[in-house]
């Protein structure tokens, strides 16, 4: 279906908009009519599954439309050119990337300047840009005119705008559609709107999210069947003894799941940061509902609260990022907003991306004018207070480039980047905000699979990727380090966990760390590629673990073992998941999905290390983490499925799950294998390369605020043979080492894990206690917060009210004195006066002569005296003002 450019944006936004809203309708329907949907609300599962299935269909249709109209160019990123025998770009890549690397390691040492410097400007000028070479043969006629379109056909209120963003990234063109559906608040300074920003990343993630969600809805129909009748919750012991007996809540589960899907898709489609923030909070509250699904359990409700509050810590940072952006730039839109003004002229209001990477600057990062001016407030003040407003504006406009050269406003851009990333840290469970995710496993397992591994927690990575053009090298280095620390800490904890879901939870944290690391070292495609492949294999792993828990009624791996025979589907699909996550494959030939994405991350980390030798630790963390991953994943699989059953009681009841649960496992395991492959132009990497933000194909040099000067290398350079061969073999060797170690511990039993645990007791205890994060937080945050709260409350009663009571007491004393004065002084005076009057009266009797003339005289004198007195006083009063 070839569409004219104008219509395509409208079509895609309508398709994806519907796919986004249908789960909301399902939520509303189940909210009001859930219990009436069949016996015990059984049919609510069909409503929810039907809704998300429809969303999947619409997303696939949108995907197809996209592929027809904008077939992505074949990139050779991540597939090493071998799978498809497509390698002619390799040569170019190598040459130019080498020159990049050399130039820039030299540059990096030479430049101490604190401000941002465009990377590879010289090369671009020579036309020898490595990325440009790739791009050239992919220029297949995307001759889009740079026009936006006032949107005609939507019929809603509010101003509509639909704009198309084009530009040369070196890899063909960046195509993105953006616009607004609805404005929550519209003012000259801020538009809080619900809108869309659609590029191939959006389309891809819509398919991924709805696909996984559909699988999980089907799976949950089987998994949650206990909730169809009254439930006895064995984990809740009542005060009176005995376990809690409660009615089932089948519809409530699907209601929350539908709301979650709506919120999650809202993040993906969001056209501006404010909308991201809105849906960010909504997925947070859905997560709260789902973690706390068994709200009778204290542990579940506590975990739900912990998740939300820790996420709010991240949101605190995100709010600051929003402020820093909005305060200086006045917009939170990603793309440009095109509207038609009253006179019929097109008005293009640049979005964040164009402001930070303006086309006239070749899409290289620069501090936008607004931030420069905001940072130069005192100078602006000086100017504005000297000349008239119109002149001031002109003078300021003249000064901006000079101020920018002085580095003004750079810190604002860094604050914005760090702030937004802070939100991503909360959602994507990066250290130090990772503590909520393992506890979130209190929720039902389908929730863990969908929300807490595949989609919501990946939203942080998604946003970091979406927001990538605005991130400065300073921020990227921070992201890389946070990612590396996270992947390492989480992997070490996963080594000793015995709860099957917690192993997977820490593995999720660790993999998210990988993605962040990739983004931080410049691997935009690598990080998001891993997001996609991880979503498939991690949801698969969680659903397998759910199937195991469903059969064993326990999470404890020490009570499992030898389940493979009894649960073949679960066991084998889980093995597929494990192989995918460790990145198994035949080097340079073919592999599971994780093989491609993890290799591209390692290659980028290695490249980063070569250019910035001082940051070598990032590479070691990535490589070492790969070995740890392989170890703990196969430890899990061996402990669960291999060997003899450790607990006969558990083993006796084990059975394979019903087909409604195993079918999704098989479907997802196919994806876990194949998600990394490319068929011609149809491949995740190609789609991602097409979505690459403008200007990010080239590397950049900068730093100085938070780190010494650093060069973030261009991603294409990591395909250089020297880099990717090393990376691939390192990945292969580390993963192999991990698997062999796990086998030695748990299959061949050459080494007894118990002995190791005893020998390394302190380390073991340290890891078993999860590096004591919870305890430390309890001591340095939770307890002091409660302490301050107590102080505030005590201050009200103890100090403020005491002062009040003292004041009241003093007034009463004063009143008492006053009363005494009244009684003894005033009354006394009056009495005295009365006495005096009385006596005077007696005396004056003598004046009363009875002669009229004397009386008249008295009156006249008195009146005159009063008149005189009054005049004097009044004139005095008049004189006062």
């Amino acid at each position, binding site marked *: 279906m070839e569409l004219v450019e104008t219509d395509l944006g409208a079509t895609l936004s309508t398709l994806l908009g519907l796919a986004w809203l249908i789960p909301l309708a399902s939520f509303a329907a189940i909210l009001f009519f859930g219990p009436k949907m069949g016996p015990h609300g059984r049919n609510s599962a069909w409503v929810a599954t039907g809704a998300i299935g429809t969303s999947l269909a619409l997303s696939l249709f949108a995907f197809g439309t996209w592929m027809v109209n904008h077939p992505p160019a074949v990139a050779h990123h991540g597939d090493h050119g071998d799978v498809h025998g497509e390698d002619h770009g390799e040569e170019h890549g190598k040459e130019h990337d080498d020159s990049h690397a050399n130039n820039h390691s030299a540059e990096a040492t030479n430049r101490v300047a*604190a401000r941002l410097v465009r990377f590879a400007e010289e090369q671009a000028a020579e036309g020898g840009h490595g990325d440009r070479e790739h791009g050239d043969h992919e220029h297949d006629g995307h001759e889009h005119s740079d026009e936006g379109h006032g949107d005609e056909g939507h019929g809603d209120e509010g101003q509509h705008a639909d704009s198309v963003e084009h530009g040369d990234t070196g890899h063909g063109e960046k195509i993105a559609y953006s616009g607004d559906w609805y*404005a*929550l*608040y519209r*003012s000259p*300074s*801020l538009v*809080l709107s619900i809108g869309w920003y659609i590029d191939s990343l959006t389309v891809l993630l819509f398919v991924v999210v709805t696909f996984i969600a559909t699988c999980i809805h089907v799976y949950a129909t089987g998994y949650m069947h206990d909730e169809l009748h009254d439930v006895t919750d064995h984990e809740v012991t009542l005060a009176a003894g005995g376990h*809690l007996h*409660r009615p089932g809540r089948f519809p409530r589960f699907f209601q929350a799941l539908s709301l979650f899907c709506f919120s999650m898709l809202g993040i993906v489609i969001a056209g501006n940061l*404010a909308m991201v*923030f*809105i849906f960010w*909070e*909504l997925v947070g509250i859905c997560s709260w509902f789902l973690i*706390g699904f068994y*709200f*009778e359990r*204290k542990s579940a*409700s506590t975990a*739900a*609260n912990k998740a939300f*509050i820790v996420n709010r810590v991240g949101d*605190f940072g995100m*709010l*600051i990022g*929003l*402020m820093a952006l*909005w*305060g200086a730039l006045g917009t939170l839109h990603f793309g440009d907003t095109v509207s038609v003004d009253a006179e019929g002229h097109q008005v293009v209001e640049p979005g964040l991306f164009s402001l930070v990477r303006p086309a006239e600057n070749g899409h290289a990062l620069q501090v936008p004018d607004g931030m420069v001016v905001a940072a130069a407030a*005192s*100078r*602006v*003040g*000086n*100017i*504005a*207070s*000297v*000349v*008239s*407003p119109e*002149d*001031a*504006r*002109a003078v300021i406009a003249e*000064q901006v480039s000079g101020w920018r050269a*002085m*580095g*003004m406003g*750079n*810190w604002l851009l860094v604050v914005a980047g760090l702030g937004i990333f802070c939100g991503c840290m909360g959602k994507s469970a990066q250290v130090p905000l990772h503590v909520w995710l393992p506890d979130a496993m209190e929720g039902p397992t389908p929730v863990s699979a969908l929300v807490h591994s595949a989609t919501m927690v990946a939203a942080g990575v998604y946003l970091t990727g979406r927001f990538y053009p605005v991130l400065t090298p300073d921020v990227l280095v921070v992201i890389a380090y946070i990612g590396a620390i996270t992947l390492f800490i989480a992997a070490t904890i996963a080594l000793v966990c015995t709860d099957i879901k917690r192993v997977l939870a820490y593995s999720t944290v660790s993999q998210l760390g990988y993605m962040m690391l990739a983004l931080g070292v410049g691997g935009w495609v690598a990080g998001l590629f891993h997001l996609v492949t991880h979503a498939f294999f991690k949801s698969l792993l969680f659903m397998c673990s759910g199937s195991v828990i469903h059969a064993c009624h326990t999470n404890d791996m020490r009570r499992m073992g030898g389940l493979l025979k009894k649960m073949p589907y679960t066991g084998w699909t889980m093995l597929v998941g494990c192989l995918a996550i460790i990145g198994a494959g035949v080097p340079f030939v073919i592999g599971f999905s994780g093989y491609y994405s993890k290799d591209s991350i390692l290659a980028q980390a290695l490249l980063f290390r070569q250019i910035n030798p001082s940051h070598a630790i990032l590479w070691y963390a990535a490589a070492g983490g790969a070995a740890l991953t392989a170890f703990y994943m196969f430890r899990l699989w061996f402990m669960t499925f291999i060997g003899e059953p450790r607990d006969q009681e558990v083993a006796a009841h084990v059975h394979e799950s019903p087909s409604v649960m195993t079918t999704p496992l098989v479907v997802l395991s196919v994806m876990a294998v194949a998600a990394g492959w490319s068929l011609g132009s149809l491949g995740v990497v190609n789609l991602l390369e097409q979505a690459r933000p403008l200007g990010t194909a080239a590397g950049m040099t900068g730093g100085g605020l938070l780190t010494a000067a650093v060069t973030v290398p261009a991603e294409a350079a990591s395909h250089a043979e020297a880099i990717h061969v090393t990376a691939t073999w390192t990945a292969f060797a580390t993963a192999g080492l991990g698997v062999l170690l796990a086998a030695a511990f748990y299959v061949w039993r050459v080494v007894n894990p118990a002995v190791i645990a005893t020998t390394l007791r302190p380390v073991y205890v340290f890891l078993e206690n999860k590096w004591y994060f919870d305890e430390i937080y309890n001591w340095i945050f939770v307890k002091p*917060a409660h302490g301050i*709260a107590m102080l*505030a*409350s005590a201050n*009200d*009663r103890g100090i403020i*009210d005491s002062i*009040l009571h003292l004041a009241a007491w003093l007034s009463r004393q004063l009143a008492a004195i006053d009363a005494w004065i009244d009684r003894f002084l005033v009354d006394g005076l009056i009495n005295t006066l009365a006495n005096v009057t009385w006596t005077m009266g007696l005396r004056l009797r003598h004046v009363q002569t009875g002669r009229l003339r004397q009386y008249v005289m008295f009156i006249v004198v008195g009146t005159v005296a009063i008149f005189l007195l009054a005049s004097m006083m009044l004139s005095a009063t008049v004189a006062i003002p």
Partner: protein
Amino acid sequence: MSQPAFWPLTLILFLPAIVAFVLSLPIIPKAREELIRWIALATTAVVFVISLMLAVPALGGFGGSQFAVGDPAMQMVVKMPWIDAFGIEYLLGVDGISMPLVVLTTFLSVLACGASWNISKHVKAYFVLFLLLETGMIGVFISLDFFLFYVFWEVMLLPMYFLIGIWGGPRREYAAIKFFLYTLLGSVLMLLAILMLYFNSDVKLLSDDQLIATQVVSPLLDEAGQAEAIAEIKAADSAVHTFNLMALAAIGQLPDSPFSQVEVFGTRLEVLAFLLLLIGFVIKVPVVPVHTWLPDAHVEAPTPISMILAGVLLKLGGYGIIRICYPICPGGGLELAWLVCGLGVVSMVYGAFAALAQKDFKRMVAYSSVSHMGYVMLGLGVWSAVAGREYAWESWAQGVNGAMFQMLAHGISSAGMFFMVGVLYDRVHHRNLEEFGGIFGRMPVYAGMAVAVFFAGLGLPGLCGFIGEVLVTLSAWNYSYTLAAISAFTVILTAGYILWAIQRVYLGAEYRGPHEEALTPMNSRELAIATPLVFLAIVFGVYPQSLFDYVTPSVNHQVETLAAWTRDVHDADVRDANGESDIEQTAHQAAVDHVADNSGVTTP
């Protein structure tokens, strides 16, 4: 001179008072409690319907009057002489700032009246005072004469005192006297400021157009009448003082305004008056450290009075600041912006911390009000239209719009929260947070609605609490990075105390307190009160423009005026001193040199 708005405004203002008067007569026997309740409910309902008809164009207006949405000016002005000797008038009117607050008041009065059905002590006296209270509240919102405003401010105080002091909980007398004295202190300071402003005002300073625009001379007069009235004013020998709020604002914003020239105790009058008025109003808001009456008053007050107290009375403070403090004393506002914002941020954080420590459910909700009203203060105060920002007014306007929205949203959510607490209290007669639990299992519909209302308080997107908080927090950034960061920090604490309370009350396996058997589902009366609150919390959350359509034009107009005042009046001296009158080129060069001299270059 016919005044079309006379009857509609007078009716919503005095109908409750008249009914109160009739009720207090011995015509209706005390024993007919049911009848008294219905009469009161009918009265509040009629007032609500009239106010709604006035406010919403689709309803076609009432008595020939109709609020024009989108018009920033004062509308439906009623102007009658009252106490001629001092120029005190019966001057009423509404604009986009007061109209929504009036409707909020009449709406919450209906709900609170419905929530008063359980009151069984001195029913007649209760409803008489309740209706008087409604007149007082509406009067404050629609008075445009400062003296009239003050009278209604005081009229409101006494019924509230008795409603808490007679129908309250065990420590009701303490709470009532505390409330009374606090507010009275504020009133006294306000009176001082009123007199200072009155005696220094002079409408002769205003131009003819301003005299008509500010209703000193009624625009309803024909041209000849207007000319005559203006001539009469101009002919007066001495200063013509006024209580007219709009005229006072126009005088306050004049270049060389008497309020900025006169000094009292070495302080400019506008600063002193701003401070006195501010103290009077912030006691009502309330802000830390003059907030301690609020938790006591709430804990002791019966549920409907708590709803009114949190839903309407607290807004009077914010309304006073926006309507009186800033327009009349802009110089004071600019000089003391740090104080307004600082008080707001301190209240936000302190209130949130204090809420975290409470064991009493109602006390916790009361402290959450302190915290939420802090946003209102912050939003009102972020005067970022200064030279360093090129006098851009939009950001500040956004703060004030956010503050207004926050007031209205908090009116819904706090009334809802207090009602939800009341529903539980009516059943189990305690409010100890440690002795609840498992309510979700026992009263699912109630718990669902309560959680929705508490989430609105939490500031969850899609519910009414979100918009105001976001607008205020964002706009704070352009005023002060530090205050903005602290206010953003509050979101963590808010989540903490609200979620913790929800966990202790609604979640969990079983109820841990006394009277377990009384935990029955909500009855239809309670549902009828809770449903509109939850509904509005959602409507304002997803369609906030419904309120902004009213609020924004008036707020923007006021803020834009004050921003222009900052540039043209307040900073004019600076520009004059630096020689704006020089030739363009010189000014240009001077600016650049000036920059180079004063920059104190700090390259990061």
